[in-house]
């Protein structure tokens, strides 16, 4: 049964991909959605088994690579961590499959789209259920590939193609670190299976390696390299540039891949490797700092973007930052909790925005929207739920998970912890502002679209609304229902069992009451502020922007990361390529090598040619010279 969770999506993908032309669009949609949904139900059942009966299992499906001491299997490991991920992946995926039936209804390539979605689901499941690092890497690259396919789904758009390649290549940069991490693990432990590696970790904590003359602790190096991989996949600052561009893909893709599942793989990796990370306080601090910086950076950029999907993309980036800093302060279970709730409300927001885009006939700029809340009542209500959950409005899911992160950061009790908590609270405030900005600009105020008349905008069909409703249920209740299970104080380790390792148990104290109330108060306060800024006094934001022109430009241009990378990586690579090609290969190697030698010999033979002029007197003269030279030589001797 467990195996069918993995292979139903693969089967769906093969059916839609290879036989889609024969069975028709509608059948491919139904078959893929049905198979993935079955997989989702089975996953929920597995999670139930894990919760109730502490069910754990490691199923070996087949051998894969078996070279010397390296021994890698295709396998499926079920433990609390992978069971939670199974549910997140399959449930969001099945809803996105169903939603896509409506969203993609005008697209000529439906079976291909569904096949990619199912294939993605399969790769993601391979990633989360692996029992070794190499299968994890397989899934890791597999989801990257599907992401590449889906971002570039509209292959005629130049920008979509560029974004797809960018996503793949930037991810490869992360994978470069990840792969080196795997090599190092194999080098140190002689195995790549989680259980064997984790067992041996305590024995190498004192081991040092020297690299380019530096002495590094081996454990720090492993953690750093794996984290580089995680940064790439989870779009953390420095390697985040691909995520906003990835919004070129169809919206369901953004919801599934670039919000709920694939981008959380980095967080999953860190949590999965908690038995290693726990021994590396240095890198945990680094993770906290990177996570915190990303959360803040992305929130500031989200404040000024005007593309509805890009705002949500930066919001995702920012929330992933939260997850990382939770993991960084050692609260892995809280990171998982936020991952879990985030999947619901962020997928909801994305699909909701998809519904808006659909209504406006592919308009994405929030400046060209407005005033349609009466026309799109259900979408509006659902988007409000998503926004409330995201901002951490009391008693919705984001409230429980985000506040828990800030609390644990505070409880960490060291400088980086306080600092992280402070930034976390401020970022929560920014989150709330930009989220409400999106809502107010999209649904309230004047209607601003010139191309579509307001009468033409319409609510989405049922097949798109039902997944939204289901997700909104998750967005409302997931936090409240699963709070005790995921982060419950006291018996916290019961559910996670051995899948997450805590070297020291998490603090069970409570922060002071004023601290607990601070975030919710700011969140509540931000609603009237946003209302004032974006509805009542619309001139004010423009004035502020004009007063701080440089800062505004800095934010609009996303801190100039793309430009910076163009200057330091992309252009030099191209120039170097040309240099090595035209100059090194062309001028140096060929010039002095084969071409040079052949032209040299040619020149010599032309010279030698001149000797053979055909004139007898010249030959006679040379003979005479030779003869006299010989004679002189003999006489002298």
């Amino acid at each position, binding site marked *: 049964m467990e195996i069918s969770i993995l292979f139903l999506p693969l089967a769906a993908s093969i059916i839609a991909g290879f036989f889609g032309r024969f069975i028709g669009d509608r059948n491919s949609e139904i078959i893929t959605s049905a198979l993935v949904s079955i997989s989702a139900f089975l996953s929920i059942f597995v999670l139930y088994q894990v919760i109730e009966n502490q069910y754990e299992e490691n199923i070996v499906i087949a051998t894969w690579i078996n070279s010397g001491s390296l021994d890698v299997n295709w396998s499926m490991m079920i433990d609390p961590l992978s069971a939670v991920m199974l549910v997140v992946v399959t449930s969001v995926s099945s809803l996105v499959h169903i939603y896509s039936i409506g969203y993609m209804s005008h697209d000529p390539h439906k079976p291909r789209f569904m096949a990619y979605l199912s294939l993605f689901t399969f790769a993601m499941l391979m990633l989360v259920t692996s029992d070794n690092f190499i299968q994890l890497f397989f899934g890791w690259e597999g989801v990257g590939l599907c992401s590449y396919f889906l971002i570039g789904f509209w292959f005629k758009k130049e920008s979509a193609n560029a974004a797809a390649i960018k996503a793949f290549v930037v991810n*490869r940069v992360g994978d470069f670190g990840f792969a080196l991490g795997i090599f190092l693990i194999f080098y140190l432990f002689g195995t790549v299976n989680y259980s064997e590696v984790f067992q041996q970790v305590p024995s190498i904590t004192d081991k040092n390696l020297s690299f380019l003359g530096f002495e590094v602790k081996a454990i720090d190096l492993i953690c750093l390299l794996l984290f580089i991989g995680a940064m790439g996949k989870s779009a953390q600052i420095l390697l985040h540039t691909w995520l906003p561009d990835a919004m070129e893909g169809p919206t369901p893709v953004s919801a599934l891949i670039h919000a709920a599942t694939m981008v959380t793989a980095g967080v999953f990796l860190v949590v999965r490797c908690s038995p290693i990370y726990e021994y590396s306080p240095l890198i945990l601090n680094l993770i906290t700092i990177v996570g915190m910086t990303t959360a803040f950076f992305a929130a500031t950029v989200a404040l000024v973007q005007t593309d509805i999907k890009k705002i949500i993309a930066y919001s995702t980036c920012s929330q992933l930052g939260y997850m990382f800093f939770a993991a960084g302060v050692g609260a892995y279970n809280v990171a998982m909790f936020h991952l879990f709730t985030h999947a619901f409300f962020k997928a909801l927001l994305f699909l909701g925005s998809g519904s808006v885009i659909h209504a406006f006939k592919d308009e994405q700029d929030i400046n060209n929207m407005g005033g349609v809340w009466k026309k799109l009542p259900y979408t509006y209500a659902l988007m409000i739920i998503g926004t409330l959950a995201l901002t951490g409005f009391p008693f919705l899911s984001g409230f429980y998970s985000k506040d828990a992160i800030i609390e644990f950061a505070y409880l960490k009790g060291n400088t980086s912890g306080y600092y992280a908590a402070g930034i976390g609270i401020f970022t929560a405030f920014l989150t709330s502002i930009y989220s409400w900005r999106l809502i107010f600009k999209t649904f309230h105020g004047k209607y601003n679209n010139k191309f579509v008349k307001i009468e033409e905008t319409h609510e989405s069909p049922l097949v798109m609304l039902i997944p939204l409703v289901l997700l909104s249920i998750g967005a409302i209740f997931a936090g409240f229902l699963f709070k005790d299970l995921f982060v419950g104080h006291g018996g916290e380790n019961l559910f996670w069992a051995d899948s997450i390792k805590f070297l020291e148990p998490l603090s069970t104290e409570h922060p002071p009451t004023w601290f607990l109330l601070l975030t919710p108060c700011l969140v509540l306060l931000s609603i009237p502020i946003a209302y004032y800024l974006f509805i009542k006094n619309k001139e004010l934001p423009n004035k502020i922007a004009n007063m701080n022109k440089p800062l505004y430009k800095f934010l609009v241009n996303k801190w100039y990361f793309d430009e910076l990378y163009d200057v330091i990586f992309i252009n030099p690579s191209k120039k170097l390529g040309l240099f090595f090609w035209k100059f090194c290969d062309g001028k140096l190697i060929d010039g002095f090598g084969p071409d040079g030698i052949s032209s040299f010999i040619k020149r010599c033979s032309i010279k030698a040619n001149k000797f053979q002029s055909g004139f007898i007197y010249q030959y006679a003269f040379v003979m005479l010279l030779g003869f006299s030279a010989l004679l002189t030589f003999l006489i002298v001797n």
Partner: protein
Amino acid sequence: MNFPILSSLILLPTIGALFLIFLKNEDGNSTTAKYVSLFASVVNFLISIYLWISFDQSISVFQFVEDRTWIEGFINYKVGVDGISILFIILTTFITPLCIISVNNSVKTRLRDFLIAILIMESFMIGVFCALDLVVFYLFFEAGLIPMFLIIGIWGGPKRVYSAFKFFLYTLLGSVLMLVAIISIYWISGTTDVTKLYELGIDAKYQNLLWLAFFSSFAVKTPMWPVHTWLPDAHVEAPTAGSVLLAAILLKMAGYGFIRFSLGLFPIASEIFTPLIYALSVIAIIVTSLIALMQEDMKKLIAYSSVAHMGFVTLGIFTIQQQGIEGSIIQMISHGLVSAALFLCVGVVYDRMHSRMISSYGGIVTIIPKYSILFMLFTLAALGLPGTSGFIGEFLILMGVFKDNFLVAVLASLGVILGAAYMLWLYKRVVFGKLINENLKSMIDLNKSEYFILACLAVPTLFFGFYPDPLINTIEVSVEDLINMYNSNIMIK
């Protein structure tokens, strides 16, 4: 084993070629010529599969050995296979029939002669991979140049003569030194029998020079940076089938030579020169990947990517780690399949539009969807995506290198990033995007034979990506034994 199975593998294509010589060279006969050659090469493939099945994977000694005196007291015609060579033989017998099927579209004149060249080349290649006597090896190794030289020189593009001579000069230069080395080995050890030389060992004081002489030949053929510049030119001018043979099989002779002779005969020198190999390989990986990024000609791009891929191979071989060497062998097999397929993919669009320039394509995915899917698959295999054979090779190599030298592994891994960049960019510019060139609309999707060839290459690429056991099991014991022999030699010193 009484039946001389290896000799028949070597001779069968030549016999096929002899038949063709007696066929009148008329256009009406070209179908007959094709069937004859196809028959010979397919039978050869079946024999090689039989060889693989009856091969005993659990022992590392040479099997199916035939030993006949050729020149009394000097040269013996000695052939045999171990786990390493058998895979290369199968690669050769597998690729050749596919090449023969593909010639329809690319070779317009003197088809019969072209087929003769291909068949004779197959004979020589198989000879290279099973020769157990240095002189026999040398003869096959060098003779293989001649048909290739003719293929480029006669059926090539506009600059074919320049390319053919460049190819010939480069490769001959290295080979002359190898010949000298072989002669001196005979003077030093009194034999050119590889197995005997393995047992005797070669005096440490001669090893460095001998190693360098062999290296000069193998480095050119691999090709390693900086003696790689013949390859892009040769590929660009060669007809599709020629490019396929060149990339898939000819380049592998050198990799095989490194394993069999450099490591096997001169372990002490290999140990000394490993840094040289590492340096050249890493340069090759990074430099040629950057060059590939900037190419405007599809064939040149793939040719440069071949240099980078072969850089991984040489890197893996000299790690003297189980993973490294096994990775290199798998990488060679995989590159044999994938580069062959990529050159065929270029050939397909070239036959239709007569242009290899990337800029003359774009937006063809809806016009020729089958082609686009298969081309995508091989693109992914070339950039080493897990689930394709390319991944297994690259990953194992890097794992092995990492054990030996961190820095080299880190630098070589950069090639993995660049590989993704140039392959995906190539694909995007050719297949995706807006259709600008109106002429492309008339393109026809893969015909039956093209579809068949590419599918034949796709199946093992994927199969060995998910289940490389058949390959690894075949080479495991032989590689293990080679490493043990190597290490014990180093220890003695």
